[in-house]
């Protein structure tokens, strides 16, 4: 499989007053197309910084980052914005949906910053929301949706531009355990369809759903191991058998 992500000795340092603080001290990682990678580590381990660099939200102090063969470590702000728009879908811990805005409009948002005509925007947003099982909630505002549903809207938004990569930063951090598994099941389904997914998490249970786990500590990769992923779908069925069927978790 082709390499989607290749980082070479990525270094990121910040100035805190007059102190130089290293967030990343040289990280070289390659991720192939179609992988499902979990990045773990304590806070301050550099995993979030690495995530920001992978997401082209920030530029490294030194080192190279090749995304689908293109070196993006030295691009300008506007060029990075275009890359984020076309190549990367983000899923955040706090969902980051626009308040008082319908699910459909939220999903259309990335398309507003590309050159997709209005009719196609609508069609694609509806298709993605259907894919995440929210075809009946197109007009609902975030406040009218449960946490799990909000995160599904966010995933639909991440998918709407047909990105090469989905970056999920603690996607289950604000959800209860059952809903967390549902979200992971959705991500696994997308991964089976060929989507490359990188999840940052500090919960080992969540990392278990990935096929490869990277551990970060002190700005370096501590370990990089393949993992036999747990099947979230099967776990859901198990849960349903154990407990009496309960309604979908409220927000």
């Amino acid at each position: 499989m082709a390499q989607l992500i290749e980082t070479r000795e990525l270094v990121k340092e910040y100035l805190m007053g007059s102190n130089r603080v290293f967030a990343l001290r040289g990280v070289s990682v390659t991720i192939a197309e179609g992988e499902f990678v979990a990045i773990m580590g304590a806070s301050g381990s550099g995993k979030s910084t690495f995530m920001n660099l992978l997401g082209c939200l920030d530029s490294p102090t030194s080192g190279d980052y090749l995304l689908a063969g293109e070196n993006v470590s030295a691009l300008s702000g506007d060029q990075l914005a275009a890359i984020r728009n076309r190549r990367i879908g983000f899923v955040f811990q706090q969902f980051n949906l626009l308040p008082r805005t319908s699910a459909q409009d939220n999903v259309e948002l990335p398309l507003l910053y590309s050159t997709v005509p209005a009719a196609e925007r609508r069609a694609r947003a509806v298709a993605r929301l259907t894919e995440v099982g929210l075809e009946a909630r197109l007009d609902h505002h975030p406040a009218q949706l449960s946490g799990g549903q909000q995160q599904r809207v966010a995933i639909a938004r991440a998918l709407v531009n047909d990105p090469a990569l989905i970056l999920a930063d603690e996607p289950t951090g604000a959800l209860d355990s059952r809903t967390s598994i549902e979200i992971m099941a959705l991500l696994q389904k997308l991964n089976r369809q060929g989507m490359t997914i990188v999840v940052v998490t500090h919960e080992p249970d969540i990392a278990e759903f990935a096929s490869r786990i990277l551990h970060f500590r002190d700005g370096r990769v501590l370990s990089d191991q393949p993992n036999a992923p747990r099947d979230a779908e099967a776990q859901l069925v198990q849960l349903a058998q154990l407990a009496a069927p309960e309604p979908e978790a409220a927000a």
Partner: protein
Amino acid sequence: MNLLATLRIALKALRVNLLRSTLTMLGIIIGVAAVITMIAVGGGAQARIQEQIKSLGSNSMILIPGSTTASGVRLGAGANQNLTEDDAAAIANEVPEVQVAAPSSRSSGQLIAGGSNWATQIYGVTPDYLEARDWPLATGRVFEPAELAGSAKVVLIGQTVATQLFGDMDPMGQSIRVRNVPFTVIGVLSSKGQSMMGTDQDDVVMVPLSTARNRLFGNTQGKLRRVGTIQVKVREGASMDDAEEKIRALMRQRQRTQPGQADAFTLRNLTEMLAAQEESSRVMTLLLAAVASVSLLVGGIGIMNIMLVSVTERTREIGLRMAVGARGSDILTQFLVEAITLSSIGGLIGIVLGVGGSWTIGAFAGWATRLSPQSIVLAVGFSAAIGIFFGFYPARKASRLLPIEALRYE
């Protein structure tokens, strides 16, 4: 990102905080309404002065004899009776800009009608005089050619004279003795009100020029057909300055004035004096508008203030938009459009209120107001400009946020 979508986002953002948006707009609304109303009030004052110019007779000039020197004693203007009816005819015929040139003589005298008497101004005129001064009759008729030629004893009386001599009675056909000569009233002049100097222009009687010459003012003037003044009305659209120059040249020639010698007459452009007054009211209007503009400025600062608050409040939204691909310029446009929308809607409401306010002042305070389309265009342009000017700083601030920091903002 196209402009229509941006505008829709802006309208939505403003609707979410409807009360806040409305209060912010209020500054612009009041400013624009004040500017329009003030300019309308000032314009009304100007219009009223123009009315006065009209009452003088529009485009009018007056030719009076110059001073004369008798044995080294210089007499004042008008002392030298050197204008004639022929001068008037020559001006009317030879200066193309001139519509009418009406000779007139003036004196004062006592009027007697029945048991009452009244001292007033007596004018010897031709019907041209009334035309030159835009002075129509209220009732009756003007002098006929036969009356002008035959020194007929007919008289037109002013409103004040009519009231003083006849009270509520109809003066038409009544007999008046002017300087003890019996006349018949054939018409009443319409009211002209006070002159600029405060004298009552309606306190007057008019008789044919020939009658005045031969029967009332009778002296040597008679043979020479001398007149006191020549009232000139310049054609609509013709240049007053050109007319003035040509009349001056013509009169110098007719009076055989040598080059270098002073004019033996005075030509006064009455319109000029009022134009000066009009100018001062224009300055007043500008002053009022300037004061009103200050409130527009304050309104603009209000917009900037609220946009800054909005940028801070929506930092996470900005971060998200950037994460999904918005460039700095997209964010800049979005907030700028929001500010412009705010100020433009405020401007439109201000126009409605300003027009309504001018109308109300006109209707209830009885002030003349005149809306000027320019002031409306100006107000719209100004309010949009305020949106751009005061919206730019907050918008730029938003566009320079770093996506990761904006996303993490609490």
